């Protein structure tokens, strides 16, 4: 695909589990265009999370190539990968991964702090995204004082505060009740409509079916790649 923002070619990754090799990615090819909404589904151990980690530059493939906006990422030094990750990619985790001693504001602010941005710039951006996820009035609350849905919304605010082009979500509704889950999905889809490329790994069939592009993985390869309106 000529206009692919992300181009994966022949991606291989094998882990050792208890001394036994486990092939998580087996020559995976995938192109992702800007603004796409992709769900990745499949049974446990099919390589969904490994794919997400590769896309997020958290892991390196054993073989194959990964080009992000035309830049070959496999051989980049760690510092360059960290900067690329910080400036282009936002993560949302099933377990939220908020830092308990920091307030909602400080958790959201963290990527900007790591980027060395000025306090004034940070304040405007953080308040903006907290407002977007409906938590501006809870900015001084610590994670222990927020509900599950609120925690995930703080995590989404943190993921988008650097205005990333790609949002990677690993089971974003996995720890939430149905109402909170629906709420989070709405927030994510709104962000996608504003232009963010959204990749969601999920076991939830309903959530998976909402995506414009639905990928099914088995044994480290893509076995189904459906586009168009959800069925």
């Amino acid at each position, binding site marked *: 695909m000529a206009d692919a923002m992300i181009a994966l070619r022949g991606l291989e990754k094998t882990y050792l589990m208890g001394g036994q090799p486990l092939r998580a990615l087996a020559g995976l090819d995938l192109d992702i265009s800007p603004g796409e909404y992709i769900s990745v589904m499949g049974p446990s151990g099919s390589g969904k999370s490994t794919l997400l*980690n590769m896309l*997020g530059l*958290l*892991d390196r493939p054993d073989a194959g190539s990964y080009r992000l906006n035309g830049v070959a990422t496999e051989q980049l030094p*760690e*510092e360059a990968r*960290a*900067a690329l*990750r*910080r*400036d282009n990619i936002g*993560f949302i*985790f099933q*377990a939220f*991964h908020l*830092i*308990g*001693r*920091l307030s909602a504001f*400080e958790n959201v602010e*963290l*990527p900007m*702090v*790591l*980027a*060395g941005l000025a306090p004034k710039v940070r304040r405007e951006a953080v308040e903006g995204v907290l407002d977007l996820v409906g938590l501006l009035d809870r900015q001084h609350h610590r994670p222990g004082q927020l509900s599950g849905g609120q925690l995930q919304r703080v995590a989404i605010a*943190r993921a988008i505060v*650097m205005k990333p082009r790609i949002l990677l979500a690993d089971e974003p509704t996995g720890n939430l009740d149905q109402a909170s889950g629906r709420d989070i999905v709405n927030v994510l889809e709104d962000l996608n409509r504003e232009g963010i490329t959204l990749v969601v790994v999920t076991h939830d069939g309903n959530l998976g079916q909402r995506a414009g592009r639905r990928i099914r993985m088995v044994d480290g390869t893509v076995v189904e790649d459906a586009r168009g309106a959800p069925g």
Partner: protein
Amino acid sequence: MRLADQLRFNWQVFSGNVLRTFLLLLAVAIGVAAVVMLTSVGEGARRYIDQEFSSLGNRLIVVFPGRNETTGGAPPLFGNSPRDLTLADAEALARIPSIRDFAPIIAGTTTLSRGARAREVLTMGTTRGFFAVRQLGVSQGSIFPERAGEEALAICVLGAKLKGELFGNDRAVGEWVRIGDRRMRVVGVLADSGESFGMDMGDLALIPVKTAEQLFNSPGLFRVILELREGADEELAKERIYRVIRERHEGEDDVTIVTQDSMLKSFNNILTALTLAIGAIGAISLLVAGILIMNISLISVSQRRAEIGLMKAIGASRIQVRQLFLGESLLLVCLGIVLGVIFAYGVVFVFRGLFPGFPLMPPWWAVPAAAVTALAAGLVFSWLPAKRAAALDPVLAMRGVVR
């Protein structure tokens, strides 16, 4: 990451682990305080010696009979050289132009009595010059007259303590006491000047040197104290003293000359070495604090794996993670240094209030040396935990997997 942000982040970690932070601070503070307080003792001793020397009077030269190398070791206490150092020798030395005053001394222990009261006392035979060179004054009566240097007058000046024991509140001046087998009239009582180099000036009886010659049946002097004039060259004066002695002792310079400056220098050298040594012993506690920081930091890295993984996932580089952990240790050490220095100076302040006679004071280098040692220990011992944190795989770290 901005420095202010890093400090704030580190501070948030501390406030989230109050007990752990307090214990680490305590370890560093104790180490720093140990260095500062121990070196204060050494420096205090050095200052004490300085004070004692200045209480002797300015720029003194002491001439002992006998050569150092002929007897070996310390200068002889009593004239045991082939040739005595005599009163005539002392008078000849006093004629050297750079000498302002002199005090020949013959010393011995005798019985001092008044009526039924008697005790053994250190008795010094000397001249009027002794009062000048030792900066002694009298609280009652007067010092020796000029002719006490030439005649065996039956007079004495008593130390304040002796006067109190023998006379109580009665007037002593003009009264008679017995020193050895002689009756002597008390002409003065020394002003209380405390102890000097372990000699209690209040427990001393001073008599004219000629009288002491007869009393102790010894023509030899115990020593001669010479006071230099302002601006006189000490080395030249020593040369002149040796020359005078050689002229009078058939070409032999059989005396030992000890100057106040050389004694002070020797003491200073010894006490500086001692201060450094005890400072180094104190620094060991800083190393122990460093090892404690390493242990706690390793535990902290292990406990904060998920947080480190998250930081990396949201864009922290290895260098930033390392900086965060090193910064945590160094900030802790800096706070520990401040606490330790405040505590040490507090103890020094209280000690000086309780014992004003001993000038306890840290040397100028104690705080910088303790701070540098503490920072170096903090940096070295937190390097490994910081390196481990920076090397964590973010995926595994967030899953809580230990590899």
